[in-house]
């Protein structure tokens, strides 16, 4: 077969087109593969709310708050861990509810995986995740009440893009969770506030925009943070 400059040109152009098509199609199919594996794991473990969990995972993946690999890693580790089936279901449903509420799950998943690696009793992991999920919901409500909204919701306040709002929710709630795990009292408002202030200050600039940190610290009162913590423990 005679190879001409013309045929080489065509091959190069065709390969480029093929590459572009693949790069457009591949991410979608790649994100489906782990989710299919998650479904297999859930169904083989006879988890009752499999459809609801999968729908929430799919939602999180499509909104960019959950990576397909994280979903698979979590499901795999959780279902393989020793512990009651009901505790596994509760952990999965807590994450499902968090996703349905459009709250971040990244830190919750990390906490579950850490607990399993540490061989912590699943009941203790379940408790910790439930508290931290409630903390996130509480922090979000406080931000709303202070006029800090997400994606154009609400009026007369400050509206942040979803990812920036999520960062505030996740890190304030995580600071409160760590404060609680460290034995801090919810009624010691100055200490609660200091824990949150320190966390946000550390992250200010690179991870969380400085303006968002200043906004949150200026508007949220120490007593409100203490109330969120108390509410999560009830």
């Amino acid at each position, binding site marked *: 077969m005679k190879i001409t400059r013309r045929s080489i040109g065509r091959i190069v152009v065709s390969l480029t087109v093929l590459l572009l098509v693949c790069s457009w199609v591949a991410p979608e199919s790649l994100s489906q593969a782990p989710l299919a594996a998650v479904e297999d794991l859930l169904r083989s473990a006879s988890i009752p709310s499999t459809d609801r969990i999968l729908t929430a995972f799919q939602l999180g993946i499509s909104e960019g708050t959950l990576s397909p690999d994280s979903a698979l890693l979590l499901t795999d580790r959780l279902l393989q861990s020793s512990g009651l089936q009901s505790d596994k279901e509760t952990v999965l449903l807590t994450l499902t509810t968090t996703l349905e509420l459009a709250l971040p799950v990244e830190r919750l998943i990390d906490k579950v995986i850490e607990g399993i690696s540490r061989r912590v009793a699943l009941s203790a992991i379940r408790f910790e995740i439930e508290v931290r999920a409630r903390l996130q919901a509480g922090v979000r409500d406080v931000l709303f009440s202070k006029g800090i909204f997400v994606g154009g919701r609400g009026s007369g306040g400050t509206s942040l893009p979803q990812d920036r709002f999520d960062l505030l929710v996740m890190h304030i709630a995580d600071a409160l969770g760590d404060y609680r795990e460290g034995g801090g009292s919810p009624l010691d408002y100055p200490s609660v506030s200091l824990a949150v202030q320190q966390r946000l200050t550390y992250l*200010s600039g690179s991870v969380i925009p400085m303006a968002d940190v200043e906004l949150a610290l200026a508007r949220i009162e120490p007593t409100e943070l203490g109330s969120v913590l108390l509410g999560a423990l009830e």
Partner: protein
Amino acid sequence: MNKDDLELLLTEAFKREVSVHSDRLEGLEFRLSEELEGRLPKQSFADVIRSVIAPSRAGRVGQLAVLAATAAVFLIVGGLFLPKLTPHQTPQVRMGESVAGAMTVGTTVFLVPAPNASEVVLVGSFNNWEATPLHDEDLDGIWRAELALDPGRYEYAFVVDGQWWGQDPAADETVRSYGGYNSVRYIGLAGGDA
């Protein structure tokens, strides 16, 4: 009849002829274009694709030029930024010191003294709490690992011969977790390592 008279006669005859058939000239352009369009050979789907992929020699040259330009951009961007993102030097550090900001962006050193240990690993939020081995190549009892971390907050612990140890003196802070301790590093941040 001279030449000028003949030309005049012909011109007038032509004008008369045109004025008689002027109604037939109306819409002539449209009719012609329709007729010509109908006579054009029909393109198959493969022809259309072929014409899009390689419409002409000039088109192919243009496509190759775009391809070359794209490759050049990738090479230039890669050349400029990749060396900064993939550290290949081995920094000299003191125990517990982080070199994330000093040498290259994102390289963090983890050190732990464990003279009698046979295995030391690092677990944390950066590796899904899976073991990353530390090494003691000069057998001085100081175990070491280097990781390239993006800016953020990371919790971690050392596992020395199966025992978790989460109170790294080089950490930015220490937190309680599941009844034990985790060390925390802030990477690339105001209060952190880089």
